[in-house]
């Protein structure tokens, strides 16, 4: 794990983080927390709906219309700010086990969202009623999503406590 960490520390991003005053890290940290909380909050709402919450009142298609662009924007901001925070002193995290929990958890969350997005039934959500099997599949994917993002956020916060 040392090589990629050394690499990111030596990028221009790392230099910028280290050479732009004592408040830079704190400010980028604020942006990262905002991004992560927005991402988690928006994903949480959709995942709960996929798990069956509010199923009689709120249509998945409507909820997804509202929540997905917010989640994607927040995810992009989280990636950029997260890379900047890591690049500041990346090699200090060489032995940090939480990094090895966080990044795979993010990968699982992204993969799950990607698979859901290309699932034929997802494309027809709002167009026709879901079959029970499809509803079950969505519930499982909502659960996987919730678990993976919960793991990512938890492990992410724990990095600072190692």
């Amino acid at each position: 794990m040392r090589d990629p960490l050394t690499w990111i520390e030596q990028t221009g991003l790392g230099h910028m983080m280290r050479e732009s005053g004592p408040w830079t890290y704190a400010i980028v940290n604020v942006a990262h927390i905002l991004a992560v909380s927005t991402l988690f909050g928006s994903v949480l709402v959709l995942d709960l709906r996929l798990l069956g919450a509010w199923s009689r009142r709120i249509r998945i298609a409507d909820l997804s219309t509202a929540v997905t662009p917010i989640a994607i924007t927040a995810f992009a901001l989280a990636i950029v700010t997260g890379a900047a925070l890591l690049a500041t002193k990346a090699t200090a995290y060489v032995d940090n086990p939480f990094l090895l929990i966080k990044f795979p958890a993010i990968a699982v969350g992204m993969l799950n969202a990607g698979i859901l997005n290309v699932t034929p039934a997802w494309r027809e959500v709002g167009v026709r009623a879901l079959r029970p099997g499809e509803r079950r599949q969505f519930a499982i994917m909502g659960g996987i999503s919730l678990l993976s993002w919960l793991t990512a956020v938890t492990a992410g916060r724990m990095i600072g406590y190692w």
Partner: protein
Amino acid sequence: MKKVAMLLGAFTLSALPAFAHHGWGGNEDKLTDVTGTVTTPVSLAGPHGTMKIRDAQGHVWDVTMAPPARTQQAGVTEKLMPVGSTVTVHGHRNKNQNTYEIKVTKLTFNNKVYDVYPGME
């Protein structure tokens, strides 16, 4: 829905063990002084000010100070102590005696004491 909410609550709580102050749990309560020469000068980037010093036995210590703005306010700037200068740091070392890492509350350089973690012993 209620079950989901409860499960979620349980998860969230399980993620909050009782950390008094983050990162200090792995360090001794007692105070240690280490005198050494600066090998990596003060950096005021990242969550905390940091530097590296080499003690008389040749061990290189990772020195962690307060968050950057507070460390700087205490008078410790990145240019204060050039490489090779002698400094004594005072603080809580890692509980693992083979890990040369110390969270510093005060440091002495050029006969001047810098309170790098005001309010901490």
